[in-house]
């Protein structure tokens, strides 16, 4: 890896649960629990997992939009929590978001040009004459006509709205874009257009991406390295070839085998997990996955497994592997 842009170390995000008239804290939702990862410059990092695994919370935490319970997030070696308000604001310009639902993430009362100009106003960029050119450039970049900037969001289809959302993310020339399920709400034929657009933009604008998704096939296509999360913990992380070719963790194996493949000839042996994902309020002891794990051993509900490194950045937290397997 060349240069680490964002480094997250031992990130904990616990949301308090308040009850009663005194709103006393009666417990916590352990949304993210001891998560570490890095985003290298020019890299696309995928965060995958099922609902409630904390993938969105972990991804959003790097923008400091969610209060962090403990742990550090550093931007090019600078601890984000030590930044002043104005310092943080400057930094946010570098990190932009794309959301899942292109219907609710655009203000229905604003024209597209105003939606795109809003972040520029906030940061005082591209003022005066530059503004018009910038707006036209952004719309063309995402495959829309500059004239369409005078329209309102409801005049666009879902795929086009997602393009507007992407144009807004590009408005301030960021270095990192975080996409939270950027293609999940789109139709299959439109999904491919947006995936291709994201990959083009990444190459043309020298971007680094964090893609948060539940769709393993989409993530395999776009991402260089992937983080698999379960109940607030990282289960496994690897470059895409290793993760899809040689998954180590039983959860990753089950997750991959559960994906229906659009090829009737490729009937594969499916690992069917029992039960549902437990609640993050009372996560299971030891390894969080032990309640559903097909390979469960005695140690699994007692001790939390350590991350074991298999080389080439491939790490998994599972008791099946000992330090002897590590390189």
């Amino acid at each position, binding site marked *: 890896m060349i240069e680490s842009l964002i480094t997250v170390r031992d990130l904990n995000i616990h949301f308090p649960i308040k009850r009663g008239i005194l709103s006393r804290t009666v417990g916590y939702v352990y949304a993210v629990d001891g998560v570490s990862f890095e985003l290298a410059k020019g890299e696309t990092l995928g965060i995958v997992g099922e609902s409630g695994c904390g993938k969105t919370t972990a991804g959003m935490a790097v923008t400091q939009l969610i209060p962090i319970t403990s742990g550090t997030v550093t931007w090019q070696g600078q601890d984000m929590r030590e930044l002043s308000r104005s310092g943080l604001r400057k930094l946010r310009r570098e990190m932009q978001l794309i959301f899942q639902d292109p219907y609710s993430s655009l203000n229905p009362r604003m024209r597209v040009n105003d939606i795109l100009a809003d972040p520029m106003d906030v940061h005082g960029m591209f003022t005066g004459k530059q503004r018009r050119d910038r707006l036209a450039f952004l719309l063309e970049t995402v495959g829309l006509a500059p004239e369409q900037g005078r329209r309102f969001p409801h005049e666009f289809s879902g795929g086009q709205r997602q393009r507007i959302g992407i144009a807004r993310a590009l408005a301030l020339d960021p270095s990192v874009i975080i996409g939270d399920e950027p293609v999940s709400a789109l139709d*299959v*034929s439109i999904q491919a257009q947006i*995936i291709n657009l994201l990959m083009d933009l990444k190459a043309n604008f020298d971007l680094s991406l964090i893609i948060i998704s539940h769709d393993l096939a989409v993530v395999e296509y776009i991402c260089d390295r992937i983080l698999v999360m379960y109940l607030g913990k990282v289960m496994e992380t690897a470059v895409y070839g290793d993760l899809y070719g040689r998954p180590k963790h039983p959860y990753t194996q089950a997750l991959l085998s*559960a994906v*229906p493949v659009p090829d009737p000839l490729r009937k594969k042996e499916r690992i*069917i997990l029992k039960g549902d994902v437990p609640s993050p309020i009372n996560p299971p002891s030891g390894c969080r996955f032990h309640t559903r794990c097909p390979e469960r051993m005695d140690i699994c509900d007692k001790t939390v497994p350590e991350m074991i490194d298999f080389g080439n950045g491939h790490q998994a937290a599972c008791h099946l592997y000992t330090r002897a397997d590590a390189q």
Partner: protein
Amino acid sequence: MKPSDSENILEVNGLKTYFFSSRGAARAVDGVSFHLSAGEVLGVVGESGSGKSVTAQSIMRLIPEPPGKIVDGRIQFDGMNLLDLTMQQMRLIRGNRIAMIFQEPMTSLNPVFTIGNQISEMFILHRNASRKDALDASIEMLDRVQIPAPKRRINEYPHQLSGGMRQRAMIAMALSCDPEILIADEPTTALDVTVQAQILDLMIKLKEDFGTAVQMITHDLGVIAEMADRIVVMYAGRVVEEASTGELFRQPLHPYTIGLLDSIPILGSRTAGETKRLSEIKGMVPSLVALPDGCKFCDRCSRVMAVCREREPELTEVSSGHKVRCWLHVEQPSS
């Protein structure tokens, strides 16, 4: 009595369901024909607005009227045309002989009644069972859909169950009267992958146990490849291709089907160090109130010809069981 295999238990012929608004008639389903054989799983694929759900709702006679209306067509089931039945007669079929499960189990279960109460209703309504017998039968149904501790679950409300459990309860309710046909409208779309795998596995098992014919509606080509025996591809309210699952994936004929299959990322297909571009279908699904003349796919088609913009091709059988609606494969009219 279940009809023997290969017999068509449901035949939809020239079904047209329109929705009328101030902007004109939206032809959600416009001349759809297909059949369902006993014991098979028929997959219906299409994107949003293709008319796949409206077709299912038309079969169940659940189209809200107005603004919707079934303008034309026949739905042949057990010697009857379902479109001729009165609402009273339809009620004896709906849920009893043709059952349906929906995408979002939280909104399709009643939040103020217990699971047991809602499943019992099926037995009380369609089988004249007593309350106690119905409850016993409900416990047995929950057991068959592999809900643990069914005696306890029977007294729980929908919000106390997880998404996967709710969908199991929905399936239990749908199968409780041993229907001949089960229509499943995106049954696993709202679920996580590992739970989706559980539900699909359960549906295959139950289909074999009950011998029910299943019409499975989905946008997910992966789900359809694993579940369906035969597939109908829909676009803009029409059937554009129909073939057996093997044939459709091996040799798709309609440019839309080909484009759709090429545009999905396939798990495990990216080799190290390579960046592949997905092939995309240009443009977007046309608005149902402003469809192009001729073939409805012509504006997005990569192999569009002059005739495509003028006249719409018919759904034509090109080889045994393989039908396609495209001028590339249908003999062109001599002009």
